[in-house]
């Protein structure tokens, strides 16, 4: 298979992390008492709230900053964050949904071939870093996309980036480099 052929790679987004602010102080004890699916962590000063639909977990701080994790798309992250803000409104807080932004997107993709990690690290030094005594995968950072790719010998790769578009671009960029390092036993 030549890298120039059109190859359909399934990129599965597994996690989207987003943040937003409520612009008001939140009483964590009230949220812990009146909210369902809530875990209060007084030692760290936050409350964890889980929503069923979409399946997201939110870390809520008394300053009004909230981090949402677990969504599988940017749109789901937004609807989940809005749902959470509505929930806090119903609890009696004067919430204004503001400064929503997606902070991190984690995706996985599987190549249809094994990858010779030592060869890949040699070909792409110093962008690629391979320390088998620390981690079994090669770490490849693309600065202009702010994306980090971890490449395993089985052909699986995990990509983290600031948004889905950057993640897709990162996969497009890395594929030809991986293809030239695939190894078949002769």
């Amino acid at each position, binding site marked *: 298979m030549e890298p120039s052929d059109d190859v359909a790679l399934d990129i599965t987004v597994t996690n989207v992390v987003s943040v937003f602010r409520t612009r008001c102080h939140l009483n964590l004890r009230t949220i812990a*008492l*009146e*909210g*369902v*699916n809530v875990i209060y962590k007084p030692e760290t000063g936050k409350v964890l*709230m889980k*929503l*069923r*639909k*979409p399946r997201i977990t939110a870390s809520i701080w008394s300053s009004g900053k909230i981090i949402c994790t677990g969504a*599988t*798309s*940017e*749109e*789901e*992250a*937004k*609807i989940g964050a*809005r*749902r959470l803000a*509505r*929930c806090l409104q*119903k*609890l009696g807080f004067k919430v204004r949904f503001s400064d929503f932004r997606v902070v991190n997107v984690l995706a996985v993709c599987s190549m*249809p*071939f*094994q990858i*010779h*990690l*030592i060869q890949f*690290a040699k070909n792409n*030094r*110093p962008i690629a*870093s*391979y*320390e*088998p*005594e*620390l*981690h*079994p*995968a090669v770490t490849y950072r693309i600065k202009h996309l702010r994306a980090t790719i971890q490449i*395993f*010998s*089985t*052909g699986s790769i995990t990509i983290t980036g600031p948004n889905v578009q950057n993640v897709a671009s990162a996969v497009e960029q890395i594929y030809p480099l991986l293809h030239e390092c695939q190894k*078949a*036993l*002769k």
Partner: protein
Amino acid sequence: MSRACPHCGSGNVVEDDLYSEKQLVCEDCGSLLPEVELTSTRTEELQATAVPYYESTQTEKRKCPNLIKGCGRLRALCRIFRFPSDMESSAVSLYEGAYGHPSFLHTSLSKKEALAGSCVLAVSRMNSWPLGMGSVVAMLEADPALFGAIYQELIKCMNLQTVGGGITELLEGFCHDFKLGRDQVGAEYGETTRELKRRALDLLELAADSWIVTGRQPQPMLLAAVYLAWQSLSPVKRMKVPLTKFCVISKFGSVKEGERRRTAQKRVVEMREVLCKLGQELPWLSGSPVKPSDVAVLVEDILALRLVLQSEAMRRHEQSLLSETSETRAAGDALSSAPEAALKSSSHSQVEEKAPPAGGHSNDSQLSELPWAKRHLFVPPCVRVAKKPRAEAAGPDVTGDEDISDGEIESYIRTDQEMRYIVRLQKTLQQQKEEEEEGHG
């Protein structure tokens, strides 16, 4: 400062040093100019100013005591690992340069110690000196995760170009850790380091080709290779000796090495599987299966004929896959065309006659239909054949801006009755806790 005389306007004003107090006098009219400033600026005062230490006594900036201690520790590490003097001096200069970097200057002492070890490792890699990260971590008794983070930070901050040490380079030093001299363990178990290293190197190359080495920790792999090499050098007497007994005989490692030994045992099993797959192809065995417990006898022959056996094993694997896929296809065709079999039997025979000339293309297409993990004989051990994807229910088609109904939100808020129950429960639990504490007190 040039001033004009307020009486005649002349600029010819001089300082009169006749008396102890300096005065400004106009030469043309002889009038005395009044003093403008009763006080002078700090820069004009030359006497009675405090002289800072660095201008008078200090000749050079003193080194931080922690830096001096760190350099001492680094030199000790270099001596333990027997670095030549030029490598030691470059390690020290790298440490002094990195110590002043903002990333390392205001950090904890444990991180500074890890920095010293990282400098040793970086210099060893730049000079292709065989030294594993695990050895440095063990010497410092540092947290491996912390050490790894500091090492990568060092590479990034100082823009170093280091070449990662290959596993085969670590083998020679590793072999010297085993006390297997004939005078130490006897003729039955004794082995020279040279023979051990040569055989272990061949086994490591085979393991690397079979995807057992990539992405794995090197030390368990090295232990497994040395153990199998030692067994194969005198298999009749050593076949029944397990890995743990081998470590005791050779006085390798300590009780803390338990986890590493368990991992090494897994690598031994994986390598024996590979050796069995290749051993089956030996001509005098005629394809009969080889047991992992008996493969030690065949290791020497397998390594000598490695390339031929590998190609034979791949060819046999492809043939078996082709026969499996053609059987499943034939079974599928037979099921689908059973009612029409009587009418179309002549056409089937024509298709079968045409099959051989087009066999090569159809073989490739049949093999390409299989998942790649099944196609290859040697794959990374953690690869599993992909399961059939479940027919997942399509997720909600969301845009992020839909309306949110009150009913959805109400499900996340407790009712008043639930809240009363919760408060009562919390009070009861709190009381029970206090009673227990009083009882213990």
